């Protein structure tokens, strides 16, 4: 028998780091060089299939990045089960912004929220200004998942969502139950490295 779980996912991050492009790649496997800026937030869904006939449906709120829209964000992360906080590997300031979002999530969001830090624009390696080590170290310290993606080439995109799907508690539907599940010492998962014991899964890159 197949089981389907639904989770709310919110995307946060500075303007123009590629949040909408990341979702567009994940949901429709498309990419546009120029897309209109997101105003307020956009809603999309996508379902991924895990082993044992289990599937996870993500209800995604892709938020606007500009500082002025910041006061809207709580409405979108309030009930979120997971968050993808995006930065641009060519813009160090965008990692700073990501840290601010993560601090806010840690303070204000549901304590059980699964947070992934995502370095986008991996295709612009020549212009890289944020090292993998730096971002990974920070993610480890905060107990976040971490990975790099390129919405343009598609690299790493499904992996990060797949890894989140695996990390979500698939034991307790409805997924919003149990607001006090706090896992402070949760180990970081390196999405760019093969996780031990996961070797039979082609998606864990």
């Amino acid at each position, binding site marked *: 028998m197949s089981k389907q779980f639904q989770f709310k996912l919110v995307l946060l991050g500075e*303007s*123009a780091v590629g949040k909408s492009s990341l979702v567009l790649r994940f949901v429709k496997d498309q990419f*546009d060089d*120029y*897309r*209109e*800026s997101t*105003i*307020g*937030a*956009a*809603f*999309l*869904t996508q379902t991924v299939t895990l082993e044992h006939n289990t599937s996870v449906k993500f*209800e995604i709120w892709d938020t*606007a990045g*500009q500082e*002025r*829209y910041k*006061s*809207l964000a709580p*409405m979108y992360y309030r009930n979120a089960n997971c968050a993808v906080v995006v930065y641009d590997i060519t813009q160090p300031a965008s990692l700073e912004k990501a840290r601010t979002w993560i601090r806010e999530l840690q303070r204000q969001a549901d304590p059980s929220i699964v947070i992934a830090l995502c370095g986008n624009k991996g295709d612009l390696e020549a212009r890289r200004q944020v090292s993998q080590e730096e971002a990974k170290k920070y993610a480890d310290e905060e107990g976040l998942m971490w990975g790099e993606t390129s919405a343009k080439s598609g690299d790493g995109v499904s992996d990060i969502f797949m890894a989140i799907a695996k990390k979500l508690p698939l034991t307790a539907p409805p997924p919003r139950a149990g607001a006090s599940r706090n896992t402070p010492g949760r180990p970081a998962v390196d999405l760019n490295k093969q996780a031990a014991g996961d070797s039979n899964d082609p998606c864990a890159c």
Partner: protein
Amino acid sequence: EDAQKSEKLIREKSIRTNRRNKFVDCLGAQDVNITELRKLAWAGIPEDFRPMAWQLLLGYLPLPTPLRTSTLARKRQEYLSLVEVAFARDREGLDQQIWHQIEIDVPRTRPGVRLWMHASTQRSLERILYVWAIRHPASGYVQGINDLATPFFQVFLSAYIDINPEDFDTGLLPKHVLDAIEADSFWCLSRLLDGIQDNYIFAQPGIQRSIRRMTELVARIDPALSSHLEAQNVEFMQFAFRWMNCLLMREISVQNTIRMWDTYLVEGPDAFSQFHLYVCSAFLVKWSDKLRTMDFQGIIMFLQSLPTQGWGDHEIEMLLSEAFVLNSIWHNAQSHFNGK
């Protein structure tokens, strides 16, 4: 039946000609009668009269003909000086935060439309947005303001060329013409934004207020829809924020927007907040039957990509009429309720 059809066409043509003649009389006067212009423009302005009519309605162009040349020359020169001062030093002299945001938004303003992909148009838009932003520090540049600049630019450009402005490369214009279009767009955008500045300041109270009022209004004019949305946990903020922030420009075509602004400009500086919320309410209620059969996900997805692609003047005019009726019935009632 054919006879009926052709009779209808003839009648419509004669109405159009009649309207054109009225515009010719009105705009050709030594001293334009603004009341008369408003009356005419509410129902839409013919394309070739629009650049002038918009500038008159916005109070940018003086009503008496003899004052116009000198006023325009002064305003255009003033804008040039503002640009000169703002960009006097090199890039490092710019407000970095504002410039950064404008720089990333300009290339993604109306992507795919040739006019807006040309470097020359993009440089103009950058200057318009940057100069406006540094003159309005309480809001600065906010995403969506870039959208609002585009109808002005396209309409004013249309006065100088014979082809569709959206296909035109502004790099082909003589410098003084491009400067004039840019300056006129800047001043007219400024006037529009004067009426909705609290949409863009910290916490965006203007938008919050409009959405609150829209929620109350829809509850009264379409209780079934209102309770369905509530039952599905749909919050107006989730879809109407963009409707207010970009004045429905992401929901309808630029041609639709331009027609809509003919009427908004007649309604006065408050129209882009007050009248607009009635337009948004009428716009939502239009889809009521469909929305009431949908769940949360269906509703949100439908509302963020509405089937308005085929909309022409007729649909916009229906919407404006509905909004007008709502406005006349509810405006005083709402003011009373809000203790205004």
